[in-house]
């Protein structure tokens, strides 16, 4: 081991604590970084506020602009209340996926400012910077969902299942958001500027969230798109949330194409989210190890 005993500034050497167990260190480091990111969110409230305005705008626009013209299978034509109930799970799900952009921009900014270099030179867990960021994003997402749910209640959305079902629905939404923030983390490590991370984190979200069951029933889509939409991981969570909120119309078929995820949306939602986390977390942590600011 080291024979170096003299220390910076002539202080008595502060012994660096012995390495603690891998998991314990990993969790503690992640929480330290998460706290840092949460403090940032409090000090830059604009980010949270803009993050709220967009989904609220979507709720209002979809409900009042499209609402009257979209027919929900199993409900009377032009039934605005039926669409409101149909729509909300979709808006909730789309909102949670926007965590991608936040995580990406945040990590790209840290790279840009040299903070990732600093973290990488510290004896901390290799995944903690990214885990801390995604955990902080999870808190922000939860906060956004709460506000959005209140808005939804105000415009007439109602859940018809028991509280356990509703909470499970929100839990699945949060899990999806957490999964997507890992995609954002990988994007943030791969691009050169925070701006690129923001747009890189958003552009593909539009086709992903629109070619789905989130905003309109898939019945009206061309057959090819119906297949895409029903196998879309995003659709699984939307369908699961709808089911858990009791926002489905009784008697309407769950799936148009007979896709397995639509027949078992809750299980499919969990599987998709876990797969996304496993895949993108692995890639992102690997990328972090060799990250070059």
């Amino acid at each position, binding site marked *: 081991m*080291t024979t*170096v005993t*003299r220390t*910076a*500034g002539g202080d008595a050497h502060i012994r660096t604590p012995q*390495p603690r167990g891998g998991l314990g260190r990993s969790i503690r480091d992640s929480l330290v970084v998460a706290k840092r990111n949460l403090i940032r969110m409090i000090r830059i409230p604009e980010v949270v506020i803009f993050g709220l305005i967009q989904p609220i705008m979507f709720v209002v626009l979809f409900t009042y602009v499209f609402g009257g013209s979209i027919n929900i299978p199993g409900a009377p034509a032009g039934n605005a209340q039926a669409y409101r109930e149909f729509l909300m799970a979709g808006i909730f799900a789309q909102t949670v996926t926007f965590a991608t952009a936040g995580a990406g921009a945040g990590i790209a900014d840290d790279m840009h400012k040299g903070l990732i*270099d*600093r973290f990488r030179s510290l*004896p901390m867990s290799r995944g903690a910077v990214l885990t801390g960021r995604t955990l902080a994003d999870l808190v922000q997402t939860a906060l956004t969902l709460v506000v959005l749910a209140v808005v939804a209640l105000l415009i007439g959305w109602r859940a018809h299942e028991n509280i356990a079902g509703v909470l499970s629905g929100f839990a699945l939404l949060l899990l999806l958001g957490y999964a997507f923030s890992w995609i954002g983390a990988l994007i943030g490590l791969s691009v050169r500027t925070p701006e690129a991370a923001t747009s890189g984190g958003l552009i593909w979200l539009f086709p992903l969230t629109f070619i789905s069951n989130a905003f309109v029933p898939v019945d009206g889509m061309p057959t090819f798109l119906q297949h895409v939409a029903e196998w879309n991981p995003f659709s699984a969570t939307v369908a699961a949330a709808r089911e858990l909120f009791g926002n489905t119309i009784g008697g309407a078929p769950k799936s148009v194409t007979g896709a397995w995820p639509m027949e078992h949306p809750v299980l499919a939602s969990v599987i998709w989210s876990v797969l996304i986390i496993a895949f993108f977390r692995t890639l992102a942590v690997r990328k972090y190890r060799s990250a070059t*600011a």
Partner: protein
Amino acid sequence: MPGAIYAEGLVKTFGDVRALDGVDLDVPEGTVLGMLGPNGAGKTTAVRVLTTLLQPDRGKAVVAGIDVLAHPDQVRRSIGLSGQFAAVDEYLTGRENLIMVGQLYQMSGRDAKRRAAELLERFHLGDAADRTAKTYSGGMRRRLDLAAALVVSPPVMFMDEPTTGLDPRNRQALWDVIQELVAGGTTLLLTTQYLEEADRLAHDICVVDHGKVIARGTSDQLKARTGGERVEVVVHASEHISIADEVLRGFGKGEGTIEPHIRKLTIPVTGGAKLLAEVIRELDARGVEIDDIGLRRPTLDDVFISLTGHAAEADENGGKGGGGAVGRQKKGRKGAEPGEPVAPSGAADAAEAVDAGVTTNKEA
């Protein structure tokens, strides 16, 4: 026994660029190595390899007795890094920044808090401790960054161009801080483009260009390689140049130079201050009025020019001027550049930082 920082045959290429082309280093414990070189010379790449941030293609590196490639996590416990850009979170307060870094060095929350308070006082940030770093001046941010690198009192420190972009007053203040550290026995590797900085802070200096160490030694040794001391005289009136020249030849140890337009004469000498006094008496006796006279020793800039054929601030890649952001973007482009960020107004600062003796060297 290898020193606190030891490297052997480090090679790192980015595409076609050999950022490190076989670098050997050996920094004895408790000393300061100044790594001197222009932008793109490979200084930052060397620091990144030694601080575990970058894997070399080839070579060996040992820091604080620990193999960098085999046990990077152990190395990280024993080093502090202060990079080119003050790497602090600008939305956290100075105190929060230091506590966070302490906790990530695996200190307990209470130890981290206590240590943060100590460092804030020591770096004169006590009054600003609970303001966000966004409100700090450039000099304060650098001090905070340096404090963050010192949280665990690491035995080995790396500072990558610590004063780049600072105004002269803040640079001076930071030098004082660094000198204090060094007095405490820390082993330090310091990269710099400022010759004066290396001269002032480093025990040993290595000059790096194109990824290679092209010279090493103490400041005095390097200067001795370039040539000895010389007397420079500026006479008051042009008519006196020829008399002064005659006087100087009497004392000189070689060919002198004359720059008539500024009435300046230079001649190599040996004998130091005693000789200078004699020169002054003789000039006075001959009725030569003097505006300025002095004994000049070669500066590190002279050394750099004689070693590399170009001045320290000259950039082989062709004047990548502009702000730090430009350099940083280049760095991100994989395989395109060795990745030395451009110092904000580096050339101008370097020129300002060196002694006036530079100009005469080439002719001498």
